[in-house]
């Protein structure tokens, strides 16, 4: 009696296993749905992390299915299919490249934007200055996509943790970092950008054109204390001069910037050539009155504005210095302003591009007083001010040409923009909805055993059970 029961049991279980295997294999093949309109919709939902390759197999299988579907459609005489993607998160760099190449291969690709991400782009450059400060600029595009309610903060972090966090950042935020780990990450809501910090490059020297005096002495001192190597000559008498460093011919290979401090005779042609080739020039104080440098200057210089007595000891020390009134030209950028009289901001540092180089104008007269007559922090502030002015004048890291590779896409610094550049702008909802798509949510699959494997297991089990049942029967003697 138990024998019969055993055989019946085997038969039943084998039958169930085979049925299940059949169902599973049928469902696996239903990953893509071909609908009437001949579109293949692939939904890549939130389970795909930004930095992983999990989407690749899905994409691969979708493209394969698409290709076969297209072949059928061609046989059936239907029109071309469109591959429609629905992206829940901005895909990672390799996935973006894959999508770009899919599109480039001629397969029409349309994608639906469900990332909810804001446009975010970051650039990093490293000044060729002592200490190699890192300049980071982050631009956000608000209002372009569906905005999440509430303004998320702009968070800057590196491998060591959060560096800074800004709320109400505006469209552009900028930082200067003394040092950071190799990767910087900026996060704004759900958008995240990673940039690699470039290596520091060789720091070139500075040339100072000044006459012997307190301004020349203390500006050179401040720059040397900040870490610069300074060259120059100060003429004391017809036969006597003081040589600073080892001045050589003005060349962009040796000098990154020239600092002119006094109203003196300079070789304007040489200086102009230097600037046009990428060097920087800082015109400080009376140097703005040199007539031969009018072409480089940021604007007209009119009168000398008097100093406010005692201001050197306040939190706006530059108002305690005499300054030339500068009217910037339209193409000049005012980098720093000081509070002037009548709520009128006076330009403190004005920059202008000339050729490949930059010219910085600093209209303050006798800035050494800031160091000697200011507060206890005046010395450090004066040094930092001059250092900042010089860094603003010099170029960024020298670009290295890599033959053959021309990257015309924004790259990982701006992932959303990169996606749009490669794949095109996201489609409006109506276009994608036409297909009556069926979304397959892969989230349920998670980390389970890959689908097809279940079928094989079940099939094997069924086989074994049938064999066992047959053996039992034969042993019993029945046929």
């Amino acid at each position: 009696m138990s024998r019969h029961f055993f055989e019946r049991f085997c038969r039943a279980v084998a039958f169930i296993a085979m049925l299940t295997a059949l169902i599973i294999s049928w469902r696996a093949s239903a990953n893509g749905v071909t609908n009437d309109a001949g579109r293949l919709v692939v939904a890549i939902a939130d389970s795909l992390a930004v930095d992983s390759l999990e989407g690749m197999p899905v994409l691969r299988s979708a493209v394969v299915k698409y290709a076969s579907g297209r072949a059928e459609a061609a046989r059936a005489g239907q029109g071309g299919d469109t591959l429609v993607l629905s992206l829940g998160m901005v895909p990672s760099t390799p996935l973006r490249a894959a999508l770009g190449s899919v599109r480039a291969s001629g397969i029409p690709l349309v994608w639906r934007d469900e990332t909810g991400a804001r446009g975010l782009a970051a650039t990093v450059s490293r000044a060729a200055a002592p200490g190699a400060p890192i300049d980071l600029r982050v631009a956000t595009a608000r209002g372009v996509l569906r905005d999440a309610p509430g303004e998320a903060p702009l968070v800057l972090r590196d491998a060591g943790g959060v560096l800074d966090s800004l709320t109400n950042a505006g469209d552009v935020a900028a930082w200067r970092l003394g040092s950071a780990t190799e990767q910087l990450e900026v996060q704004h809501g759900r958008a995240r950008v990673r940039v690699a910090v470039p290596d520091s490059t060789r720091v070139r020297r500075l040339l100072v054109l000044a006459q012997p005096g307190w301004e020349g002495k203390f500006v050179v001192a401040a720059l040397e204390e900040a870490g610069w190597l300074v060259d120059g000559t100060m003429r004391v008498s017809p036969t006597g001069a003081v040589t600073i460093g080892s001045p050589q011919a003005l060349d962009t290979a040796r000098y990154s910037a020239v600092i002119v401090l006094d109203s003196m005779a300079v070789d304007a042609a040489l200086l102009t050539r230097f600037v046009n080739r990428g060097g920087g020039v800082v015109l400080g104080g009376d140097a703005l009155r040199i007539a031969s440098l009018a072409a480089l200057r940021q604007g007209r210089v009119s009168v000398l504005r008097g100093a406010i007595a005692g201001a050197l000891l306040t939190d706006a020390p530059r108002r305690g210095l005499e300054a030339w009134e500068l009217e910037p030209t339209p193409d000049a950028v005012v980098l720093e302003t000081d509070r002037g009289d009548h709520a009128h901001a006076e330009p403190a540092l004005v920059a202008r591009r000339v050729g490949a180089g930059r010219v910085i104008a600093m209209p303050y007269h006798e800035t050494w007083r800031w160091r000697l007559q200011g507060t206890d922090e005046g010395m450090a502030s004066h040094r930092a001010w001059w250092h900042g002015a010089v860094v603003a004048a010099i170029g960024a890291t020298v670009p290295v040409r890599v033959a053959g590779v021309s990257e015309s896409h924004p790259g990982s610094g701006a992932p959303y923009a990169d996606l749009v550049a490669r794949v095109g702008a996201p489609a409006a909802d109506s276009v994608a909805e036409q297909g009556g798509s069926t979304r397959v949510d892969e989230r349920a699959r998670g980390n389970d055993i890959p689908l097809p494997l279940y079928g094989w297991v079940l099939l094997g089990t069924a086989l074994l059970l049938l064999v066992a049942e047959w053996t039992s029967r034969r042993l019993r003697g029945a046929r």
Partner: protein
Amino acid sequence: MSSELLSAGQVRSGDLLTTLEQLRRARHAVSVGRRLLLTLAGALAVFVCTRLLLAALSVAEPPEAGSAAHVSVPLLLALLVAAGVWWRSRSAAPDLARTALWVEERQAAVRGARPDFALTTAVEMLEQHREVPTSLAQVAVGTLRASPTLGALKTERRLAWQWPLLFVVVCAVLVWRDLQRPEVGAASDGQSASRGTTESTRKAAVVAPLGAWRVRVQPPAYVVQPARSFDDVNTVPALSGSQITVSGEGQEPTLEADVGDSTGNAGASIRATANGWLATMRASAGVQTLRLSRGGRTRLLIVEGRADSVPRVSLDAPARDSVFREPAGALPLAATAHDDLGLSRAHFELIVTSGEGERFTVRTVLLGEQRWSAAAGNREARLRGQLDLAALGLQAGDVVHLRAVARDAHPAADREFGSSETRAFRIARPAEYDSVAVEPAPPPEVDKSLLSQRMLLMLTEKLDRAQPRMPRAEVVRESQKIARDQARLRLAVGDVVFQRLSGESAAEHAHTAGDGHDHGVDLQGGKLAMSTSSTTGMLEEGNDSPVIAINQPLLEAYNAMWDAGRALEQGDPHGAIPPMKRALEAIEKSRAASRLYLRGRPPQVIVDIAKVRLTGKDTGQVTVRSAREPLPTLTAARDARLVRAAGLVATAPAAARDSVALLRAESLVDAPAFAAALGNVLAAFERDGDATALFVQARRVLGNVSRTRATPWSRGVTP
């Protein structure tokens, strides 16, 4: 009945059987012995082989001797095999018939003939209780007697038992020794031990990691303070020169001492004591770290040394400098001294300078000395004294500089002492009182003329207000008095404004308008222009050097005073007021512009730059300036270290805490805000709280990250 069938003189069947029985037993014993031998041999062989096999399989981890697996498994196997062998080698016990057969075969083998089986038959018949024929019995007995079986059997038995016994004993001894030895598989036949650790290294590998310690701080001898003990701290404050001893239990750890601020040899040393170990070092004035490591654990002790500060002294009385007409009288002196640890002595110090011009003599006098013992530990003291001017033997023109000085108990020879401000007292010269006394302290500046001008203005205004009520003559008289004062003041200003190149002092005489002197400076109605054409303004000295005006605001004041003076002399106080106000303003302006020296002897020489420019014979050479060293920037390095320490928090919190403590100690001097932020991190560690936010804060305080203004310019500029 069989026994009766045998004839007399022959062995009875009972004897036959008995003998055979004995033989049978002996033979049985021999076979048992052989079986035993076989079993034992098999078992031992299996045991040894299994142990060798197991040792070869587990060569990676040499097991301890006598481990369960390596004994029980072979033993089990051996027993199994023994049981199998015993079972297989069983055989039926020999019965009498077979024994008889054996005897006969033995006999036959000795005689070299076939056995005749008489004995066997007889025994079988006897066993079946049948009658044995006499002839058979005789032959049987004969056979039995003839074979020297018993003796041989005995020998055989002995041999059979002897060798196996010996073999077993030897094997057992070897096996026992093998089990006792720590090596595996080295047992039998004296094979040498091949690999494995020795007894001593097994014991040495266990070193206890560094545990808690006790710190004791003994202040230097001159500070009479008791020693302090701390239990297991990581930071200890100490006075410079204190002796720090760290003691703990166990083995002596290795020592590294870092002198954070190298003011000399730390002189740290460590030695083992009866109870453990003892490390000693001497604290300096800065931060030092002591690193001890043992058993894979390193601990840091940070010694925050502080220097013994110099006493602070303030001179309470006398309160200001003074001039004495005569060296007589007594000045009360009072001073207060404070020290952080204890004063040792204090006194007033006087420096008396006599002489004039280029010849001066100096002597030093000490007054009112007080001493205290170090044990008293006086932190505050008041000094009192009396300065008797007559006793000092002062002369006219001498200057006395007075200050209070205090020393603390620090034993160094070149130790700094604390001193107060200095008061200066001068004995006036008799000649000074004949004319306007000139104070030796800061000269009266323009302020004095300012005050005078203001006073004159006030007088004039008062006169102007009173004018309607006064008779005209009186008004004129008063107004001319004011005019004289104004002129005096004007000339004082004029002396400054108009300089001569002669190098001789201007005559300090006050001239007024109507005093009869020829004022060469009176030109163009009294107003002087800044022109070199005024060389015709000669003074009575008759020198021919030109007069040049150098101070524009004072020139204006001069001119205004001139106008005012003229108006006053004409008896018009009302008309004099506006120019007086102008003069006042001009003087104030010149006061703000630069400090002027309006003392009795103004600087006399003004250099004519244009005339002497580059007229020297020599104009110097080209020289090279030495460059300034850049200031060290530790920010980036500290940031990297902080990031590494933060990364260690999850895996090795003790190491992270030590790294942070070390970083804090190093930045106490030049980055106190950063050190304070790190102190917060350490406090969070103590509380076992989450230090993540504090790490971020410390990073920000370091100043590595600064927000710049996002201008269209590609380079940020820090505001």
